[in-house]
């Protein structure tokens, strides 16, 4: 009995356990000091948690991992570009960028949600392709419309040709303005207290949201669309709302992320963010249909430990730092692949389980009769 629970614990938490294992090998190899690692981890938790938390609500609504969170990230970036052109600095600049990002996020989220409703059962791949599609439109706006249709004053962010935004937009004026607010230093570790307060507020929001009528509807829709529809829940609208919320939160998350970075790579900052957030969430033990706040923090910690130590460990092990870099990319893809495969096989197994148990009972029945 006890053995059984251990086995099921391992099989249910295979990904996090694997990561703990890899990290426990890689950390000593890398030769980083504990305090350095701790400082880095704290920074990264503050930087990434908000973004990853934005993934939770669509999972609740049964729409899987929202690969389309990138759309929100783009909305946030547009906000930041405009704000930095208007020279609004610091926290007011962040707030303004968030306010600007909201309508864009809502628009993109609605489009994305509507398209996903047309592609039920294929939400993830659709969301994933949506990234590329909207990225095209983002480029159209940022590379061609800004400076022409949308006025951009400062030549420091414009391309020399007079329109389009440069590859990098400096966010020096708001760099870590949120992180430095109420920041505490313990030894060499800086704890960005206020950022953590914001993240905690989001966690509270998510917990509260689960208790609302809308949250309950989302859970219902996520489990069985048909039953939910029969009971009078507007399934399509509920699903769209979940995507919209996720997109808006991802926009905020991106702004928090970028204020920490201190600069914005206009055309590449968002392209991988979805992938890395999803990988981190999955590393924390989440699956396509179930994710908790705990998964987020465990995931972001484990995933980023690997990210920090991999290049240096790779150098020690193979004599080539690129190996480590490729390794961590490989790991993030592999984790997503593994989680997706687990999800699909679990789904099929659950279906077969019912049959098998019935089959067994029937065989026993007929055997006992014959005996």
């Amino acid at each position, binding site marked *: 009995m006890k053995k059984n629970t251990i086995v099921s614990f391992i099989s249910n938490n295979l990904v996090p356990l694997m990561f703990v294992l890899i990290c426990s090998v890689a950390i000593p190899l890398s030769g980083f000091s504990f305090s350095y690692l701790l400082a880095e981890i704290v920074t990264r938790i503050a930087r990434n948690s908000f973004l990853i938390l934005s993934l939770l609500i669509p999972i609740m609504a049964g729409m899987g991992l929202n690969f389309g969170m990138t759309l929100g990230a783009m909305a946030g970036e547009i906000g930041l570009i405009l704000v930095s052109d208007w020279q609004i600095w610091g926290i007011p600049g962040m707030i303004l960028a968030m306010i600007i990002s909201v309508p864009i996020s809502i628009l993109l989220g609605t489009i994305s949600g509507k398209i996903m409703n047309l592609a039920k059962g294929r939400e993830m791949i659709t969301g994933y392709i949506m990234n590329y599609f909207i990225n095209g439109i983002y480029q159209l706006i940022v590379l061609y419309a800004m400076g022409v249709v949308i006025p951009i004053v400062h030549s420091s962010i414009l391309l020399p040709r007079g329109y389009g935004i440069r590859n990098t937009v400096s966010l020096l004026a708001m760099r870590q303005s949120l992180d430095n607010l109420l920041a505490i230093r313990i030894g060499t570790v800086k704890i960005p207290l206020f950022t953590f307060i914001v993240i905690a507020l989001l966690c509270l929001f998510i917990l*509260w949201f689960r*208790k*609302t*009528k*809308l949250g*309950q*509807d989302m*859970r*219902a829709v996520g*489990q*069985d669309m*048909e*039953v*939910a529809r*029969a*009971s*009078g*829940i507007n399934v399509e609208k509920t699903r769209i709302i979940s995507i919209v919320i996720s997109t808006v939160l991802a926009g905020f998350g991106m702004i928090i992320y970028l204020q920490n970075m201190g600069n914005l790579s206009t055309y590449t900052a968002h392209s991988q963010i979805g992938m890395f957030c999803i990988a981190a969430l999955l590393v924390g033990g989440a699956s396509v249909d179930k994710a908790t706040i705990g998964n987020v923090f465990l995931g972001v910690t484990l995933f980023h430990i690997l990210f920090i130590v991999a290049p240096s460990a790779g150098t020690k092990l193979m004599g080539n730092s690129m190996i480590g870099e490729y390794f961590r990319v490989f790991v993030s893809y592999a984790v997503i692949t593994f989680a997706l495969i687990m999800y699909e096989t679990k789904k099929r197994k659950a279906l077969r389980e*019912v*049959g*098998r148990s*019935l*089959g067994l009972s*029937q*065989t026993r*029945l*007929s055997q006992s*009769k*014959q005996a």
Partner: protein
Amino acid sequence: MAESPLLEFKNVSKSFYGNNVLNGISFTLNHGEILGLVGENGAGKSTLMRILFGMNVIKETGGYEGEILVDGNLVKFDNPSEALKAGIGMVHQEFSLIPGFTAVENIVLNREPQRKSIISEVFGPRLNTLDRKKMDEISQKSIGTLGVNINKDMLISNMPVGHKQFTEIARELTKKNIKILILDEPTAVLTEKEADTLLKSIKEMAKRGISVIFITHRLQEILSVCDKVLVMRDGVIVRETPADKTTVREITKWMVGREISGISAENNESKIQNKKEIKKIMSVQNLWVDMPGETVRDVTLDIFEGEILGIGGLAGQGKLGIPNGIMGLYEAGGKVFLNEKEISLNNPRLCLDSRLAFVSEDRRGVGLLLDESLEWNITFPAMQIQNKYLKMLLGGFIKWRDEEAIKEVTEKYIKELSIKCTGSQQKAKELSGGNQQKVCLAKAFALEPKVLFVSEPTRGIDVGAKKLVLDALKKFNKESGVTVIMISSELEELRAVCDRIAIVSGGKISGVLPAYTDSEEFGHLMVSNVV
């Protein structure tokens, strides 16, 4: 009684695509009355209830004729929520519960008591928080009235079936102003004890003024709980009687009894006698099949060479599971012998190799390649299994499709079965149901089987086509001497075509009788061990 009845049907009729399924239905239901509705499958019970509940399918297929009155007011429900508003609740055969929710959450689904907050004032009432305490109270009360002991905080997925059923009923009861509760075979999944509890609570509900329409195949239950029994057959009400003035036997007779046309008893008898000298072609022993909704539990059956064996029974009793299990489409166990040789189960290929063929009841799902031509549909199995219609190139290394042979054979079957189509290249999805069924038969015929299973050959096709299909089957049986096993919900159809009829009830064969036997006998077998 000055008061008008709670519910009144006046001359309600309904037809689907020209098929009359309901004809001039009139009845009344008083406050606190329990009405038992019985009838064979296809008698029109479900359609009647769908009309009452305002299901979309009714409206989409052109609505209905006649009038329905609730409390003396004329109503016409366009969708279920209107019916709900008018106080009509329905418990379906399939559970409409959310598996990962607790009983409480399911009972108040989408009607949760809520608390307002500032946020919900701005963003709308969907951001109200749920009032868990009140939810619990409501559910507990509702479960209490049912008189059962269900853990309200248990997840539905962890519940035994009976508790799921009670949860659904409890949900209907919490609906405000519920006046009429439709229970569609609620006891089918219950143990005897649970069924008793349910019956008790139905009576309890009636005492509180809720009227109940109770549909079941367990006639004993009808007699014990109902005030009034309606017996339906072929879309009409054949009898309306107070429950205490009738017997199970009588009801059965009303349900199935009717004049038999185009069948001569003697003919059948002689055929059977001839059969006795003929050897067993197939023998099924202790077969179980896990087919959702059509579970076969323990079937033992012998089939004689050259006969047409009918398998009948009520829906959900497992008759469809038999051919699907033998042919390897659903997981099965037990033993099946063909000409004394055992056939291994769960492998469609081996069955087909030993010259069994199957025409599935799921015509569009399993039976046809809807997006492909008739040629493909008809020749595909024979090509794959028997290497027919192929040209062997390079000494058989390349098996090239022989388009000419394919066209030829397709046209032969189109002619033989008079399939109405624009040509052998037409896509299967463009044909009508009857012609699609003929294509399915042609596909099986092309395999030249020794034993042919035909499942629900006339389901969903119009009357004219029905006859053609059945005739084609009979002709095939007579001319090629092929043993045919026909599974159908329509007893009369079986009696017209088959030599012997096996009745399945509760996943077991409850009896095999010659086709000329009185239909009343079959009726008894059908309900003998209904689960």
